[in-house]
């Protein structure tokens, strides 16, 4: 016979009482003790972490049973105090079982709440990503989004005929490119041609650095990129008055 594994002695006691169909208030210490000990003997799979707790309860039950017969206490080398499992009377045992039953019922209810909540999805579950549209990007017609910028970049690269050389160490720095771009854009509020920001004959490494610098500048809203007409070249300028957003330094 395979026996269920119990969360602890109260869970086991509770199971035995339910099985016997006795009201908690009516339990007989003798009977419940006999059943409890019988169960422990038949237990094939014992949760070792809980073994001592089960034994403490056995000792407690034996103590209560013996109390009924003789005013003596059963000595146990287990320390019930440590677990705060001292139970001194049948009434107290009943009290503790009632208390346990209450929380077991609460746990069952919580389980159903848990199940219900599993059926509801909030955005934090998928990373809680903010999908914020840059107001400045939408404000002026012909504004260019980052994907648009990417396309321009790809066209730029497509124009390059020769294959790029290896990326050489220290050949480029995004940081320097950021400074360079900001310098190039100084005082040119009407906009600078996107392609003009890439030095002539630049290698792939330099183009990448420049491009990443542009991306970062767009992202932190230091610059804006737009088109004066569809399919016309991209223009880049300092963002003088960041569109409602806070300037980021």
């Amino acid at each position, binding site marked *: 016979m395979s026996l269920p594994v119990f*969360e*602890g*002695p*109260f*869970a086991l006691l509770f199971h035995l009482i339910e099985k016997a169909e006795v*009201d908690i208030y009516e339990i007989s210490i003798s009977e419940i003790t006999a059943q409890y000990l019988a169960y422990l003997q038949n237990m094939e799979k014992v949760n070792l*972490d*809980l073994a001592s*707790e089960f034994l403490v*309860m056995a000792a407690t039950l034996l103590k209560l049973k013996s109390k009924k017969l003789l005013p003596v206490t059963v000595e146990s080398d287990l320390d019930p105090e440590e*677990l*705060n*499992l001292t139970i001194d009377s049948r009434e107290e045992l009943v009290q*503790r079982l009632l*208390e*346990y*039953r*209450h*929380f*077991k*019922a*609460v*746990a*069952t*209810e*919580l*389980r159903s*709440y*848990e*199940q*219900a*909540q*599993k*059926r*509801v*999805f*909030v*955005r*934090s*579950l*998928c990373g*809680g990503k*903010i*999908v*914020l549209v840059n107001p400045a990007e939408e404000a002026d017609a012909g504004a260019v989004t980052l994907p648009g910028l990417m396309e321009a970049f790809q066209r730029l690269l497509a124009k390059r005929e020769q294959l790029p050389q290896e990326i050489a160490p220290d050949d480029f720095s995004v940081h320097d490119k950021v400074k360079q771009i900001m310098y190039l854009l100084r005082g040119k509020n009407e906009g600078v041609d996107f392609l003009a920001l890439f030095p002539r004959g630049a290698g792939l490494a330099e183009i990448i650095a420049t491009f990443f610098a542009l991306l970062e500048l767009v992202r932190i809203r230091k610059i804006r990129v737009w088109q004066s007409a569809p399919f016309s070249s991209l223009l880049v300028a300092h963002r003088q008055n960041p569109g409602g957003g806070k300037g980021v330094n």
Partner: protein
Amino acid sequence: MLIKPLVEALLFTTEEPLSPDKLAEITGVAIKEVREALWQLQKEYSHAERGLQVMEIAKGFQLATKPELAPVLETMFKGEKSYILSQAALETLAIIAYRQPVTRVDIESVRGVKVDGVLETLHKRRFIRTVGRKDAPGRPILYGTTKEFLKYFGLKDLSQLPHPALTE
């Protein structure tokens, strides 16, 4: 600027449920207006034609999907929501929720077992927190539940804890 769209956008972007107080603070409008907007949104989203709901949870509000859509949405988030708490964790949480602030020994006396391991797990999952020390010998730590606990079980606040009827 209109209040309702702003509140809607905030309930959408937030990772945590936002309280009316917090919403009022962010938007800079009176709490009465915030509550009105929340109520309006709740009503609008409750329509059967809508797939989202204004969920009231952990003393705040947040947009969430409607439960009846879960079967399809689950296919998108396979695995993410599959684990459930152990029975031991649930029982321990139940005791802490009702008895807080409560010591480890008090919890153990109810459950009849040691709870060190369970407490550690619940702490790691941020379902419980230490709320102080009891003015008793050894000054034992007192535990309480968190906002995370409320969110996990979909509770507005602690007053919504289940009160199972204990009829024989």
